[in-house]
């Protein structure tokens, strides 16, 4: 087993020198895992949140962390391989070197015929292409793929929670933290002047729920909507 001292003094620096692309990917994965766990723990320790909510948000944080991690490892690995392939095939070329020289470098026999300076230039170029593509993969994974998946999942969860408020018969039930869900059957039969009636309480709740959903909506629009 590697001792921690040896790991930090020799093994990790060696890995950094030999394969910087993989080093960056693995260290990013480590920091994202720690960050996800940290955010999850901070939710669990948040006493202001109800216990059930804490569990739910913790699971949400863990799911986000999982999506980030899987996307990061998959994309950066694949992009890294793709970048290396592009450089090896001569699709992207180093400064003052042509595609023929790169092809020659890739064959065992031709490599010996090349000048050592050209050889070192091409090998550095292949490494750089791999690292650049790995970073590109990380950007695509963390900044494009993961947010899209997260937004779609969050939108789906939001829709499901809103659907819970509607009965299958078409009778509207109001989900309110203040009072239990009350069905509204014939709105026209109830006088509209008494605020203390159940219907008006439910109307007020309905309005407050809409307000909570859209805090920036014009108040007049909301009042008209729930008249």
């Amino acid at each position, binding site marked *: 087993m590697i001792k921690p001292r040896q790991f930090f003094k020799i093994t990790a620096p060696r890995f950094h020198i030999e394969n910087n692309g993989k080093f960056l990917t693995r260290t990013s994965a480590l920091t994202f895992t720690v960050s996800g766990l940290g955010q999850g723990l901070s939710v669990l320790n948040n006493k202001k949140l109800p216990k059930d909510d804490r569990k739910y948000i913790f699971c949400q944080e863990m799911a986000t962390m999982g999506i980030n991690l899987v996307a990061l490892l998959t994309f950066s690995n694949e992009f890294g391989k793709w970048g290396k392939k592009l450089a090896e095939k001569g699709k992207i070329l180093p400064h003052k070197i042509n595609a023929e020289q790169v092809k020659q470098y890739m064959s065992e026999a031709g490599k010996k015929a090349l000048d050592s300076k050209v050889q070192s230039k091409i090998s550095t170029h292949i490494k750089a292409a791999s690292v650049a593509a790995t970073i590109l993969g990380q950007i695509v994974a963390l900044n494009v793929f993961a947010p899209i998946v997260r*937004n779609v999942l969050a939108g789906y969860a939001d829709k499901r929670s809103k659907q819970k408020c509607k009965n299958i018969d078409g009778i509207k039930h109001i989900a309110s933290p203040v009072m239990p869900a009350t069905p509204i059957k014939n709105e026209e039969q109830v006088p509209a002047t008494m605020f203390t009636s159940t219907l008006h309480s439910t109307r007020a709740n309905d309005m407050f729920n809409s307000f909570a959903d859209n805090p920036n909506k014009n108040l007049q629009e909301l009042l008209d909507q729930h008249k």
Partner: protein
Amino acid sequence: MVTLPRPKKIAFGLHVPKSFAKLADTKPSMQRLYIGATALVTQTALDAGNPMVDKETRKNSATRTFAKMIVTTGSGVCARSIGEWIGENGIKKGLFKVPECFKDIVKNTYSSTEAQKNELESLGMKIEEIQRKNSSQILESLTKKKYPRAIGAIAGVAMAVVSVFVADMLFIDPITNWMLDKCPRLNKNKNKANENKQQCENKCKGWKA
């Protein structure tokens, strides 16, 4: 029938600038900067154009993402840069020593002297200075340049992990909220929401009376 010889396939490739080679030695702080800078644009744009939520929610989430990205990228880049500075200067000032076996690792990775010279050049050493040195001196100076960088990268990652607990968990939310409060453009939605809330409360008071 006369058969014409097939034309030789000409390989075309896109030439990249000379500085592209420097990407092979990207530091973790630079990597965090690239990811953060692109996140600032893409994540804000994705949140602003999310069709699953209504217009106001979109606006709020986009402004919050924008503020949060500035804060997280800033703290991440700073933590990594500090770690790298500690790692690199620690070796220069003799806090850590370059292990003897590391010379062999560098020699195995950059087998020819030309490769070592090329690497030294990309690390910022002047060509005249490189040409004055013999092969063993080149290997020596490459090891001395490479090892601090590697230790700096590791220290940078360690600092990033620490910063997650110190900065991200304790300061990200207050700083993001402070930014949203201070910046009038970002604050526009919040002000409107507060105004509406106040109006609603006044209306309720009127009803109760």
